[in-house]
Structure formats: structure tokens, C-alpha cells
């Protein structure tokens, strides 16, 4: 109990004094996860729409597969990306291993299944009457897709929020492809809040870990507040 209180106080101290290390780590967490969420959304939302409205053989199996991938362990994704980006791997020439870009790639891949699957769920939650109404008004395929998405806006934004939450809270892939590096320059470092918590815990700095955890939750709170506000417009 004492450690948790100590952690809380340490968190306040780190935030109020704008501790430079914590600020850098937090900013990196936000940038990496935000970018991954945006990229994933750009792919997942249209793709979800196309899958939902399409009729092709194996559609049910595809949706089944996507939902199965919800359970994909983050470490496995991390391992996969690591093997692809390692110097001896197929994309080794890109020299992306141990860079923030690698982390963005890993997080994007990680949250894609959830975002595609939830987009499909969101769209199927839209009243079929709306689809028929749109069709009867002469909507093109694109207009059908776009307008149904607008109706499902709330649920789709919920998917985005979930995607961001999953991205910013994951550790396994971030450590594997990023390396938890704290270098002298901002752009060469790959330490984010979750990997920092992992390190501090393994080194025995419990209050520091709790403090970082609180900072992470505070960030998630702010981000979700923004998303909720947009949802209710």
C-alpha cells in the first residue's frame, strides 16, 4: 500500500517538475501509438467497410480469421516484425530495427485485426433500413459506404479508441523491435512508457514504475476524453 502511495506522489513530482526523461518517454509513447493508430485506422476502416459490404466466397471465414487474430499475442507480433527487420531478415536493408519507426510498424500490425473487426461490427450494427433508404435514394457504392460509416461513427470511434489503448499499453512488441533504448538524442531512442515501466520494475524501482504507470493512464484519459467529445458531436 505504501509503495502505491509513494508511486502516486512520485508521479505527481515527475509531472509537476516536468522531469525531462519522463517527458521524452511520454512524448515518444504518444507519437508512436498515435501514428500507429492513424495508420491502422486509414487501413482498417475502409477495409472493414469493403469487407462488410462485399459479397465474396470465404467472407465468413475471413471475418472469423480477423476475430481470431484479436487473440494474437503482442510478443508474437513483435517477434515476427523483429525477424522481418533484422539485418539478416528480408527487410534488413531498411535498417529499421531498434528505431521508433519499427515500433510504429509493429503497433500498427498489432491493432489492425481489432480495428478491422470492430469496424465490421460497427457497420453491421447500423439499422438495415438506412442501407435500404440509401440505396433507394440512388446512392453509389462509395456513397453507401461513406454514409453508413457516418451512421456508425460512434462505434467506429470506439474501435479507434480501443486501438490506441491497445497500442500505447503494449510492451512485448515494443521491447523486441525497439530495444528499449535510451540514447542521447530523442529520435534515436526507443524507450516508451511501457518499456520503461518494465525496466524500472526489473531493476527494483517500484515507485518509479508506478509513477510511470500513472502517467500512462493520465495520457490515456486525456486521449479518450478527446475521442468521447468527438463521438458525441
Amino acid at each position: 500500500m505504501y509503495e502505491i502511495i509513494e508511486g502516486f506522489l512520485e508521479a505527481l513530482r515527475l509531472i509537476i517538475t516536468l522531469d525531462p526523461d519522463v517527458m521524452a518517454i511520454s512524448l515518444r509513447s504518444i507519437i508512436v501509438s498515435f501514428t500507429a493508430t492513424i495508420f491502422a485506422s486509414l487501413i482498417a476502416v475502409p477495409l472493414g467497410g469493403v469487407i462488410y459490404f462485399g459479397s465474396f466466397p470465404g467472407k465468413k471465414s475471413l471475418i472469423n480469421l480477423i476475430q481470431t487474430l484479436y487473440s494474437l499475442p503482442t510478443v508474437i507480433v513483435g517477434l515476427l516484425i523483429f525477424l522481418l527487420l533484422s539485418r539478416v531478415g528480408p527487410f534488413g536493408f531498411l535498417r529499421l530495427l531498434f528505431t521508433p519507426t519499427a515500433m510504429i510498424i509493429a503497433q500498427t500490425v498489432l491493432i489492425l485485426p481489432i480495428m478491422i473487426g470492430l469496424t465490421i461490427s460497427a457497420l453491421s450494427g447500423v439499422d438495415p433500413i438506412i442501407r435500404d433508404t440509401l440505396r433507394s435514394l440512388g446512392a453509389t457504392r462509395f456513397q453507401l459506404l461513406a454514409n453508413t460509416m457516418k451512421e456508425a461513427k460512434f462505434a467506429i470511434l470506439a474501435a479507434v479508441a480501443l486501438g490506441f489503448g491497445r497500442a500505447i499499453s503494449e510492451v512485448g512488441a515494443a521491447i523486441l523491435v525497439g530495444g528499449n533504448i535510451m540514447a542521447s538524442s530523442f529520435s534515436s531512442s526507443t524507450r516508451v512508457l511501457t518499456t520503461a515501466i518494465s525496466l524500472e520494475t526489473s531493476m527494483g524501482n517500484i515507485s518509479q514504475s508506478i509513477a510511470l504507470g500513472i502517467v500512462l493512464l493520465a495520457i490515456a484519459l486525456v486521449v479518450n476524453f478527446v475521442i468521447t467529445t468527438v463521438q458525441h458531436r
Partner: protein
Amino acid sequence: MQQRTIFAVTAILVAFMLICGCTGTTSDQTPGEKQQLRIATTTSLYDTKLLDHLTPIFEEKYNAELIIVSGGTGKAIEYGQRGDVDVLMVHDRAREDAFLADGYGTNRRVFAYNYFIIIGPESDPAGIKGMDPEQAFTTIREKGMAGENVVFVSRGDASGTHSKEQAIWKAAGFNYSTDIQGSGSWYQEAGTGMGATIAMANEKQAYALSDIGTFLAYKGDVDLVALVDEGDALLNVYCAMQINPEKYPDTNTALAKDWINFLISDEIQQEIASFGVEEYGQPLFYAAQNDWEKIGVPQAEVKDPVL
């Protein structure tokens, strides 16, 4: 309203593309003028923060940037074998020899050493205080298998520390896989890092093998004490070696050599020998420079600069 939202979203997207572009430059070799040196090391070394202490000195002298990743020794070696780093710094002589023999590494230099310690509850139910490491291990196993309240928590994760533990069991005359692993509930494999292993040993009031750095960091938070801290079997020798440019031609060879020579230089050997005294009241490492006989390595490995 909709147009504003679209505009806002687009603006954010563009902003993040730009930010992404900035973070993307790390995939180019040099942000600005600085060269980068990639080092893979073991958590036992990294967590003592010795490297954090030496990094600014090196970076200023050579106008470079150090990129250091750490993991268990097995993981660090893996990075070395895949050519993902330029330098490997570990503490497992046997695996280092294999690494060199397989042609993955070259130019090994030994720069520091310290001792592992056997930690355990203050009450010391197995009574191992002050024993030789092999004797202590034998006693723990004996009492543990006899059903007394004696437990040993192992790293169980192919780390350098785990290798050392296995070596001590072997020196005590046991076959690790048949006599120790799975021989009873007295022997538990944590499969995690040193800190978590110590925490687990604390919970169970058990014995464990630890490196001195991690233990000192945890000392105030756990009810365990160092019971055995002397003995050749506890010797912990750290080396640095280059990843072989013949296998991986695009590693940063020049800077790797600079780093290794930096570590064995007189000035830095002094820094290493005095590191930790202020915070812990005792040094965390001994300089390897003059003790090559004591630690059983060729003099060339502590003295000769890499050419």
C-alpha cells in the same frame, strides 16, 4: 461542421506524417554528423548503470551516439549473431568462446569483473553462510530434497547468471538436467530477469544466485542477505567484442574498435574501479587491467589495444 472535422483530421494526419518523417530518419545511418555505435549487452551489466556513466564520456570524445540494447545474455548473443549490433558485451566465457569460434565475433577484450553472490533469508535455514559456493549449493540441495524449508530460485532463462549457476552445480558434481532440474519443489525456475528473480526469492524466503549490482539495488527492499560472496566459482568476468566485419561488413568497425579500446584504457579502467562507491559504499566492479592472472584470461585481452 463536417468540413471542419475533415480538415482537422487531415491536418493531424499531415502533422504526424511529418513527425513520422523525423523519427524515420533514424533508419538513415547518421542524423547529422554523429556516427552511431550499436551495442548489445546483458541486463546484469546494463542495470548497474555503468554504461550510462561511461556513455557521455565516450560520446563527447568521439562525437558519436551509443545505441545500447540489453537483454539476457542469450538474447544479446542472438543480436550479435544476426548482425543487428556492432559490439557485444557479455559475461559468459564459454558462450563467448563459441561465438568467436563460429566467426561471429572478433577482438575480445576483458574490461571488468566482479563476483556473483548467493543470497538467502537472514535466518539461513540451510546454514550456508561463509561456505564455498559448491559446498553451499550441495547443502541447499541436500536440505531441500530432505524436505526442510529450503528453496532455491533459479533464473532459468539462459542468461549469463543462469549459466554461472549451472557451472557451479557442475563443479559441485551434479548433472544439471537430471539431478537439479525438476528434482523437487525445492528447485524453482523463475524464467525472468534478475530483479524479478530476487523479488520471487524474497517472497518465498529462498536462496538464489545474483550479480552484485542488481542485489545492491534491491537490498533495501528485500529481506535477503548475501550469505556466500567468495570463491573462484563466483567469478563474473565481463568482456566486449566486435561483431566480425567479415560476416557483417556494414557494422561500424572503426567506432567498435574505439569503444573497446576506450574500455581498456587507463582512464576508464579507473572510472570502472570507482563506480558505485558513492552510492553503495562499495565498488560494483573491479578493473580487469592488472588482474588478468587472477581472473584467468590472457594478458593480451586486458592490455592490448585493438588495431
